[in-house]
């Protein structure tokens, strides 16, 4: 590698880290992004100087097509589809890393050292797993595949066996690198494993799964760096891996569950008893007019958004309602639960898109004590994250999970499409509490009607 290329790679690594630091606050985030973009340009320039590259023909064609697709996707994808977009890009990242590994192996399988083989093995294992696993997550989010968990007998045992098998193949391969059959078998099994790991995971657990796959995509890129002896790949992959890892921890903690429980617990299972119990719940239904009156006579309103808001695309109507209320002197805040939605930060992005100032978006710990002083808690398409059972009912599957204290507000208005339970299939005590009223219907239409009633 030439000195120039080495320097450019070094520069890129430093710029990536400085850029990421910028994400520490919303004010500096765009500058950080720009710094990282310069880093990426440096890394690509350094690579194009690589002596092995004999022709730029295919590079120009595929990078051209890829950039065009990337630009189109970035410009056209609605913010509500962000989880799908992220899942898809993890799968691209996994595939790219895996294919580079396969290409390397196909060229050098006769001369590859044990250490390099180990790195290539990891690369293809994580890359393949991330590729299919993320495609499955994408399919579930998009609705191609049933979003609910799919379970069958001995599922966990089978997955563990397959995982063990692929680990064994990796060891064998590292010992005898020239046995090509083992390599391709391992690649295949990694892809099967990706499908099988994600199949049993229900929609509400998607934030954890997407974060974990984020981490795997990073590890695959890092392994590529080991195989190619390239430090910028190792560093960028490690940063990506660390980020996915941190997000997975944050998400798991917000659900009071361990990684293992998410991966092997099949939490999304529909609880038949709870379903039956929901029918018998006594609820108080309210009209749009009632809701409008409650809201306009309040002094402080805390909005609790959930995945239902994303599905109904109700974020703009929500902001409109909030502006109306603020004009009448009502204080409006938003309580954001870390796992509301289908990916980390999902609600923040949706509300920011609808022009809600981010200083109105409050994190769970920050706002939970304020519910007691709120006149109205307005629940828009959220369910499990506002279920008070998590606080006191030890037999509830979500017991111990930190939840928003919507039940402590003077009145709680819940906008719901139907009486169906949330993704976890758990009865929600909040809905039958004496100070709770439910307004049924599409969240967006209901919010628009409330705005009309206020005008």
């Amino acid at each position, binding site marked *: 590698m030439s000195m120039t290329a080495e320097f450019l790679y070094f520069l890129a690594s430093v710029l990536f880290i400085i850029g990421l630091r910028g994400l520490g606050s919303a004010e500096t985030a765009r500058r950080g992004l720009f710094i990282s973009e310069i880093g990426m340009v440096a890394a690509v320039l350094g690579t194009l100087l690589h002596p092995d590259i004999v022709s730029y023909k295919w590079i120009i064609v*595929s990078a051209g097509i890829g950039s065009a697709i990337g630009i189109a996707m970035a410009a056209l994808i609605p913010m509500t589809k962000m989880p799908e977009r992220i899942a898809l890009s993890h799968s691209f990242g996994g595939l790219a890393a895996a294919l580079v590994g396969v*290409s*390397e192996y196909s060229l050098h399988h006769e001369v590859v050292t044990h250490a*390099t083989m180990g790195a290539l093995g990891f690369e293809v294992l994580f890359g393949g797993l991330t590729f299919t696993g993320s495609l499955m997550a994408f399919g579930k989010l998009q609705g191609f595949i049933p979003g609910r968990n799919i379970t069958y007998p001995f599922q966990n045992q089978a997955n563990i066996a397959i995982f063990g098998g692929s680990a064994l193949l990796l060891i064998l391969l590292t010992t005898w690198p020239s046995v090509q059959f083992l390599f391709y078998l391992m690649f295949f099994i990694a892809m099967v494993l990706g499908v099988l790991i994600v199949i049993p995971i229900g929609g509400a657990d998607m934030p954890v799964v997407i974060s974990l796959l984020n981490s795997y995509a990073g590890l695959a890129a890092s392994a*590529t760096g080991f195989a190619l002896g390239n430090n910028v790949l190792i560093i*960028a*992959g490690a940063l990506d891996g660390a980020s996915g890892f941190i997000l997975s921890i944050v998400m798991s903690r917000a659900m009071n569950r361990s990684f293992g429980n998410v991966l092997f617990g099949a939490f999304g299972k529909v609880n038949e008893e709870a379903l039956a119990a929901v029918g018998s719940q006594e609820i108080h239904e309210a009209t749009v007019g009632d809701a409008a009156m409650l809201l306009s006579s309040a002094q402080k309103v805390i909005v609790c958004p959930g995945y239902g808001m994303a599905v109904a695309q109700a974020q703009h109507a929500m902001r409109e309602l909030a502006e109306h209320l603020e004009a009448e002197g009502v204080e409006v805040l938003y309580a954001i639960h870390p796992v509301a939605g289908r990916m980390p930060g999902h609600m923040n992005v949706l509300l920011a898109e609808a022009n809600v100032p981010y200083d109105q978006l409050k994190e769970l710990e920050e706002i939970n004590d304020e519910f007691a002083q709120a006149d109205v808690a307005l629940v828009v398409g959220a369910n499990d994250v506002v279920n008070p059972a998590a606080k006191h009912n030890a037999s509830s599957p979500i017991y111990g999970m930190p939840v928003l204290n919507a039940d402590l507000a003077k009145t709680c208005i819940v906008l719901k499409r139907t009486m169906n339970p949330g993704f976890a299939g758990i009865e929600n005590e909040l809905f039958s509490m004496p100070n709770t009223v439910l307004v049924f219907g599409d969240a967006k239409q209901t919010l628009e009607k409330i705005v009309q009633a206020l005008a």
Partner: protein
Amino acid sequence: MSHEMFLGLYVFVLAAFVGYGVIGGVPPLLHTPLMAFTNAISGISLVGSLVAAGAEHTTFSTALGFIAVLCSSINVVGGFLITDRMLKMFRKRGGTKA
């Protein structure tokens, strides 16, 4: 294990700790942009893909490189653009956009 591999391990572990420290400071507000951002950065696989596509050793390796460049350039270009699109939306009350 070769000397180079060990150096790689040092780099990996240090970078992981740096990443852990830096990313721990990112507020939950920005978690979605963070994901899109790191996604773009992990498009750095482009570095390996470009060599695979441009070296033209065998048709097989070139074809794989071609697909890999396609995938990682979607991630790099798309990832940076969409992160910027998201970050542009975050603004303070009454103030200008971030």
